[in-house]
């Protein structure tokens, strides 16, 4: 993992000092709420429906055990004993007191964390594959580049007041687990024929009320040129992105207006003009950062472990967990383990302080002290020896963290919705709870197979409903919470936009509708065909008929 040097510490500490000063000025009345607002937002402090909410960055989803312990401590000391992991690899505390927030930020700074740029119209936390550095299918670990981008984007003098928020994601794997085509900038790490490392650069993806899949503007950007090229993209956007209408301010609208080719041309021209300036880091710095992400020394072990097979034969739930929640590691005899934060009937993405402490201890014991957070709102132990799986699972299961539903229908992404969010039209969390309760049967879920449900409480799409195999969107229908059903989206390498199936439903009706959609799939699927493939083959008609009846 990256470790701060004196300069990184100095910058983050200076920020805490600045914020402490701002909070004091607010508390004494020297600053009005209106004046304070932009300042607190730059430090991740939102005002929600009932209280302040502090959003803490987990840069590219990587946490150490000690950092996780500190999050647990903050949840216990300054909040109501839990934290919420988000779709952008951040963690949110829902009940901090304003007066405590500078202390919280100091607690974070002491373990090399911060809340910088988790809000506001700036470059947000860079996200990546939750299995980075562990996955069997990656070209290289994408995190050194994410760290490079984190540093470059922090307090950027020119790009801190963009037309709108700006999100960058990187993947290095065959399977896109970072949804790069749905980001303002998506980067795919690859190797060219000469064996050099570089990026495919995609711009203009985004969700919100106008969902757009990003377009490639460069097939191969040498890795050494990453920052200067990013700067060129951002300058074009900062100058020309719309500022008259916040719903048309994202880069996706500018890319649509100019056309991807013209956007590429302007970027290229600006890049040629600036690339000889010292914007890109020296090779020594790239190497320094990369060294922090050297793979852990793991003993090569056998993939056949009798204890695992034995327990799997005796215990269906363990067998299901191994099958769904563990995945192939680079090093034989090891796996990465997803700890599901989606217990059936529970709140997606929430973890208590005790659970966070436990995960930290388990990371120390079984996973080289490393933890990851996924955009699907789960936690990951990236480097676990297969032989440790029985003991690990028993401990997790006893703590309510043993759900075997990773990637299945109940592994639902849901935004905070009307339970917390001031912009919401409808509640998201209770819908997720109702669905996971309805489908609380592991055998049935395994039979249904991979199926991603994503729920947003309003058109801002924080729950990524456009990218759900089944998407659910909360709308306001004459003062009533109403839910639209969308089918056929994908956030992966085969990215697609989900389409609305028909009229919306009330809270009960939407759960019934999901069940009917699943029934059509189970009836129509061909051998081994997953939900999305069946939907793509059949189109919406049979689903429509099952849900709405013949009309």
């Amino acid at each position: 993992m990256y470790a701060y040097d004196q300069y990184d510490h100095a910058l983050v500490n200076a920020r805490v000092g600045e914020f402490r000063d701002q909070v004091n000025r607010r508390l004494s009345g020297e600053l009005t709420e209106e004046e304070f607002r932009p300042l607190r937002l730059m430090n991740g402090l939102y005002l929600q429906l009932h209280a302040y909410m502090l959003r803490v960055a987990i840069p590219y989803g990587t946490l150490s055990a000690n950092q996780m312990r500190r999050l647990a401590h903050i949840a216990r000391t300054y909040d109501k004993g839990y934290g919420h992991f988000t779709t952008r690899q951040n963690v949110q505390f829902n009940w901090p007191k304003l007066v405590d927030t500078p202390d919280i930020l100091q607690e974070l700074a002491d373990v090399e964390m911060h809340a910088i740029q988790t809000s506001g119209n700036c470059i947000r936390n860079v996200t990546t594959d939750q299995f980075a550095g562990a996955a069997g299918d990656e070209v290289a670990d994408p995190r050194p580049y994410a760290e490079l981008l984190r540093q470059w984007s922090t307090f950027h003098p020119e790009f801190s007041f963009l037309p709108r928020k700006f999100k960058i994601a990187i993947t290095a794997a065959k399977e896109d687990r970072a949804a790069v085509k749905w980001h303002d900038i998506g980067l795919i790490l690859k190797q060219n024929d000469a064996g050099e490392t570089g990026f495919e650069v995609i711009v203009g993806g985004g969700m919100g009320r106008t969902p757009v899949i990003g377009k490639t503007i460069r097939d191969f950007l040498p890795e050494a040129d990453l920052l200067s090229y990013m700067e060129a993209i951002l300058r074009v956007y900062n100058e020309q992105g719309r500022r008259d209408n916040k719903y048309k301010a994202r880069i996706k609208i500018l890319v649509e207006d100019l056309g991807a080719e013209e956007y590429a041309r302007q970027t290229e021209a600006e890049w040629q003009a600036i690339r000889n300036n010292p914007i890109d880091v020296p090779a020594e710095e790239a190497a320094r950062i990369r060294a922090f992400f050297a793979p852990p020394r793991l003993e090569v072990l056998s993939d056949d472990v009798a204890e695992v097979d034995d327990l799997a034969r005796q215990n269906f739930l363990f067998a299901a967990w191994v099958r769904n929640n563990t995945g192939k590691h680079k090093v034989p005899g090891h796996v990465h383990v997803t700890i599901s934060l989606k217990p059936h009937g529970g709140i997606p993405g929430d973890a208590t302080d005790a659970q966070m402490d436990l995960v930290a201890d388990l990371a120390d014991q079984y996973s080289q002290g490393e933890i990851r957070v996924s955009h699907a709102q789960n936690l990951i132990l990236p480097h676990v020896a297969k032989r440790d799986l029985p003991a690990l699972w028993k401990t997790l299961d006893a703590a309510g963290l043993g759900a075997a539903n990773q990637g299945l229908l109940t592994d639902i992404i849901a935004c905070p919705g009307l339970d917390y969010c001031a912009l919401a039209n409808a509640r998201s969390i209770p819908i997720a709870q109702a669905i996971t309760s309805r489908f609380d049967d592991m055998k049935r879920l395994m039979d249904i197979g991979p199926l991603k449900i994503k729920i947003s409480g309003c058109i801002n799409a924080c729950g990524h409903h456009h990218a759900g195999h089944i998407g659910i969107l909360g709308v306001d229908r004459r003062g009533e919470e109403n839910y639209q059903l969308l089918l056929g989206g994908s956030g992966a390498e085969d990215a697609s936009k989900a389409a609305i199936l028909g009229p919306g439903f009330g809270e009960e009706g939407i759960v019934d509708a999901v069940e009917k959609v699943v029934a059509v799939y189970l009836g129509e699927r061909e051998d081994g065909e997953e939900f999305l493939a069946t939907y793509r083959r059949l189109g919406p008609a049979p689903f429509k008929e099952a849900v709405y009846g013949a009309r």
Partner: protein
Amino acid sequence: MALVNLTGKETGTWVHIGTETTIEDGAVVAAPLAQLVDADESFFKAVGAVGAVLATDADWRAVAPLANKLSFVVINFPSFSDGRGFSLAVRLRKDLGFRGEIRATGHTIPDQAMHLLRSGFDSVETPDAREEAFKAAVKRYQVFYQSDFTGRTSLAHARHARAEERKAS
């Protein structure tokens, strides 16, 4: 209004002229860009020094033909959140090689002091109540993660500066 000097370079004083104002010979004047684009040579000869007042959405290319006649530029922020002003200053320094004073007017906040300075601004006009906060903000950060177009190089370069020196010698 207070004038906060960000770079320590000498700041100027000038009068703003509108379309109607008659100019005293040798005066230092600031005028909207559009007016300067239309002005003839006699205007530039008559005044002592002239600066352009730019809106944040001004096209830097439109300033190019005038750049060597301008002593200073004023960029007026309608709102602190209009970040085009930063790119505009960068363009003046980077693409036009403009060396004169660049001043921010309008709505900026003290927390932008470093952004202004590092984008190429020399000074900022701000309500008196904000003066101290602006001055404090300039001093708060000593190192930066980015190279900018005012000659500051990034922390990434600083970290390896000694290695670079060794290579050079």
